[in-house]
């Protein structure tokens, strides 16, 4: 990405949002302990937020003064179809992770994203999604014992069944 002597689409709005966000954080930082002491809980937050405000205002002023880039558009160069599809799928993943659980949500995510991005055959997308998910699952769940949200798949029972099978049913 590049530095903006020429203003990219949406950059002015972003820089103003950052300045407003910084001001809000400065206000919240002052609320922590006010100006009670140099060693107060709010000293570093105030210092950091004040630095953010000053730099964000300078960035916004510079951005607003700069010439807009007429060769770019927001829909093509900042948020093209593939990117907003990715963002939408990430948000959907976050929403579905708890109710559906790790395995079905991750499989759906991998399958839909691979299909949307590559446009390749259903078989290819199903196969690669399954292989990827199994690999990740083995590393995190089996090797590192990370307990992901179970949801609708009774993972614990399935793993216990496999364990029993491998130990000869004992």
């Amino acid at each position, binding site marked *: *990405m*590049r*530095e*903006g002597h020429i203003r*990219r689409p*949406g*950059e002015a709005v972003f*820089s103003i949002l*950052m300045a407003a966000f*910084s001001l809000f*954080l400065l206000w*919240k*930082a002052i609320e*922590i*302990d006010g100006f009670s*002491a*140099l*060693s*107060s*809980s709010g*000293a*570093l*937050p105030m*210092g*950091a*937020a004040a630095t*953010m405000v000053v*730099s964000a205002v300078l*960035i916004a002023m*510079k951005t607003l003064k700069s010439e807009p880039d007429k060769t770019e558009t927001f829909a093509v160069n*900042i948020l*093209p179809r*593939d*990117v907003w599809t*990715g*963002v939408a799928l*990430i*948000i959907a*993943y*976050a929403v579905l*992770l708890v109710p559906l659980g*790790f395995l079905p949500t*991750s499989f759906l*995510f*991998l399958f839909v*994203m691979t299909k949307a*991005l*590559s446009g*390749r055959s259903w078989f290819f997308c199903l196969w*690669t999604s399954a292989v*990827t*998910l199994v690999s*990740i699952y083995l*590393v*995190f769940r089996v090797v*590192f014992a*990370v*307990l*992901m*949200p179970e949801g609708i798949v009774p993972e614990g029972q399935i793993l216990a069944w496999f364990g029993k099978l491998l130990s000869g049913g004992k």
Partner: protein
Amino acid sequence: MAGFSSFFTPFIDPKLLFLIATGTWAGIYIGAIPGLSVTMAVSILISFTFSWDVLPALALMAGIYMGGVYGGSRTAILLNIPGAPAAIATSLDGYPLAQKGQAGEAIGITTTVSFFGGMLGILVLATAAPIVSEFAVRVQPRDYMMLAILGLLLVGSLSGESLIKGVFAGAFGLLIGTVGMDPLTVADRFTFGFDALRGGISFVAVMIGMFGISEALVQLHDVHKEAVRQNISKIVPSWATILKHMPLSLRCSTIGVIIGALPGTGGDIAALMAYDHAKRTVKNPEVPFGQGAIEGLVAPETANNAAVGGAYIPMMTLGIPGDSVTAIMIGALFIHGLNPGPMLMIDKPDMFWYIVGSLTLGTIFMLIFGLTGIRFFVKVVEMPRTVLLPMIILLSIVGAYAVNNSLTDVYWTLAFGVLGYFMKCYGYQLGPVILGVILSRLLDDNWRRAIISDQESLWLLLKGTLMSPLSIVLFGSIIFLLVSKTALWKRLFTRAA
């Protein structure tokens, strides 16, 4: 040297040899997976060793630590996603090299200098541990504070074209680091009444979001382009290349050992400081910094592995952790009935030499696995992006969740990923955000200690600074860094040149 014979114990015991090799191999691959930090790997794997004897446990830990610090460089080079914070600086020049099809060369030189740095760090640990730890014990809170400010000023060097955007990003990182309950006064900071925010925002969530998710989103712009065919014909660097960069490597090893030995500052800060040192001292690199300069790889990679030996110094001699991994190790040593601190070296010198031997062996295995496993690893990034990018996003999400088994961390990762994407689009560097988060606690604690010990007086703080040689050096460095960024300085030196 009492107990020196224990140095060779891991070399001659097949079981210990195997454990160190396994630990190093696992460390390299875990360190390379975004989201699986070496801290996390050590903390999870260490829990399996509590029932073991102390020697095998220490052997595995030493291998994971050494391999993990190195492993983070691989994805930094191949995917621009540092596997560990210590590899943030590595991605600045490593990834441009991979984009030019020189990934093999980049990983080869990285492995070699990591080996060199690691060995030098261990040498210092073995020979000068008491001296360096004596130095570290004299470091005052104001010096730590200035060290943190120095680290933050590197933001200017890291932020490429726009210093002001780098400053904004660094301050933003500092602020993220203060979110949660203040450990000293229990006051809430930026919690907005949410209990989930009282524990703060996980550093790993910020790191994976900013470097994993946002990078994947940026790469979606070019998802239909053919993947860069990584040229791995030349992995082992030539002697000429190694010798050419040896002076820089030596200087950066020294930086790495010293920074690593300072409590609270580990390989991440050492790597960033070494990178900045290289940028300032190497006047005419063959390729400019940030565009694939070999010096930009040599400096951070030597320093972060040298910092491992450095981090062990205060741990072994004072019982103070050099970084988060050594903090976990101190806990493990207590469980195994050892008491890290000055008495350990007096009562159990054999344990000290055993640890030095294990680290040495781990470094040797790091070189072997580092130079032999690249082709397999590189195959991963030659996969079509349409398959690789969904996998990276999923891996990042799972990695973020795995640290605390927390869905909140996943939501933070996704939020920082989207924010990081827009920041990248508009020319903000993300490295300073992470640096700010890392340094936040160090700066906060030591600022408050320093100002309280000086009776809340800025004048007394300045007076104290000017009375201590170490403080003067640090203070002078800060002033120099600030002045050297001004237009007047640049104009003066451009004319002089």
